[in-house]
């Protein structure tokens, strides 16, 4: 290789509210650039909104994480050859049917039907927060339990086991976790899922996993290991992401009282605010790695088959070409074309569940606790600079 990589990936934020400064530099100066990866390899980073959408929606980029050339974001890689594959690692034509098998569970209408139950869960957690000590930790009281309870109920996973998942999921996304520890955490949750599904086989209950057993059997496509892989994916994806969005957005609202006042005055604005929070934080941006499988030019740069690409959602979501004053938080901007959920065939399956949870949480939290305030300096908050999903470890609040 002749080019020297100017940057090492992943990069860390210097300000908790902004992407790593190098993102902007790359986006403005050399929007498709080479970066060094933790395992010594390199990949292209793609930083402009339009280019990110191209990478994520063009078949010349593969999502097959088991391919030996796939860019590895953690030392030692993450997947093993021969691991049960899930939809996120599949390409067309295999991907579509796998995704569509569960998609019916996540339609906008299905999510709407869950609204009353989610509201009940949120109210219950806020009751508990108010009854507990002051200051309280919003992460423990609200951010984590709400999405966990919801996804557990949807899947049919006993919530009593959530400490167990939480511990292992945290290991999966921490950058400092060793390959062995990550592998062990992965196998532990996968094994748990297989046992749980095995129990459901004789008499499939009316939950997502039970319905999948029935549906896949009808299609002659049922395999326990494969469903366990899907269940694992949904459980993990449903846990950490929404939780972190709840915590971070709460901080952002509390620091922007006019915008908070706007949603308090008109809850109809909360969904727009949710979109803006998703854009503003873009908590997962390195997950959208791809492997180029056929030469293609992106943003004026030729990318060759066999080269790795990181489509940086956070750089795209702060691209002034797509959003005016991108570093400002503005709930009225109309941010729906953000790529915080990715883009293209692999776009987040649970996005409308996430939207609904966030909408209900913000409407309820600020209505029921209008005096909510941070109980620590923003500078002292434990932001997750060491994880591949951004967030907060704790969020002390008072009221």
């Amino acid at each position, binding site marked *: 290789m002749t080019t020297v990589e100017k940057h090492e990936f992943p990069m860390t934020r210097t300000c908790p509210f902004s992407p790593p400064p190098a993102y902007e530099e790359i986006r403005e100066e050399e929007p498709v650039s080479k970066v060094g990866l933790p395992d010594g390899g390199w990949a292209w980073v793609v930083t402009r909104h339009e280019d990110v959408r191209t990478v994520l929606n063009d078949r010349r980029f593969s999502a097959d994480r088991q391919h030996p050339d796939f860019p590895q974001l953690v030392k030692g890689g993450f997947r093993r050859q021969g691991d049960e594959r899930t939809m996120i690692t599949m390409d067309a034509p295999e991907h579509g049917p796998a995704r569509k098998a569960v998609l019916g569970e996540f339609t906008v*209408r299905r999510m709407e039907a869950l609204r009353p139950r989610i509201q009940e869960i949120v109210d219950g957690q806020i009751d508990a927060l108010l009854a507990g000590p002051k200051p309280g930790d919003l992460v423990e009281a609200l951010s984590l339990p709400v999405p966990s309870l919801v996804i557990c109920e949807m899947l049919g996973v006993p919530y009593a086991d959530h400490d167990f998942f939480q511990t292992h999921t945290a290991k999966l996304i921490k950058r400092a976790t060793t390959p062995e520890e990550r592998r062990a955490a992965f196998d532990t949750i996968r094994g748990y899922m297989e046992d749980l599904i095995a129990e459901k086989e004789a008499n499939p209950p009316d939950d997502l996993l039970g319905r999948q057993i029935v549906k896949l059997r009808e299609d002659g496509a049922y395999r326990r290991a494969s469903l366990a892989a899907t269940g694992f994916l949904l459980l993990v994806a449903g846990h950490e992401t929404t939780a972190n969005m709840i915590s971070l957005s709460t901080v952002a609202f509390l620091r922007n009282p006019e915008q908070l006042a706007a949603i308090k005055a008109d809850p109809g604005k909360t969904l727009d605010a949710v979109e803006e929070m998703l854009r503003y934080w873009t908590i997962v941006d390195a997950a959208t790695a791809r492997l180029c499988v056929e030469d293609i030019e992106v943003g004026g740069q030729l990318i060759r088959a066999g080269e790795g690409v990181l489509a940086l959602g956070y750089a795209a979501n702060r691209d002034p070409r797509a959003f005016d004053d991108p570093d400002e938080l503005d709930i009225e901007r109309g941010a729906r074309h953000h790529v915080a959920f990715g883009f293209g*065939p692999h776009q987040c399956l649970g996005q409308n569940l996430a939207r609904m949870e966030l909408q209900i949480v913000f409407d309820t939290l600020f209505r029921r606790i209008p005096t909510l305030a941070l109980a620590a300096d923003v500078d002292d908050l434990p932001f997750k600079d060491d994880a591949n999903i951004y967030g907060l470890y704790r969020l002390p609040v008072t009221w």
Partner: protein
Amino acid sequence: MKIIADTGKCVGAGQCVLTEPALFDQSEDDGTVIVLDDQPEGELVEKAREAVHVCPSQALLLQE
């Protein structure tokens, strides 16, 4: 104007339904888009444009 949807490309994100439930629905079975009204008029024209803009798989097309 006519809305054309490619269910092969559709990834079932439901952005179209969120934009305008009068124009779009999703199949109960596999979540892919169902166009309820493919010839929108009046205010719905703008909504159709927005849906095309936010659709994450570029599965929607407007034939002017």
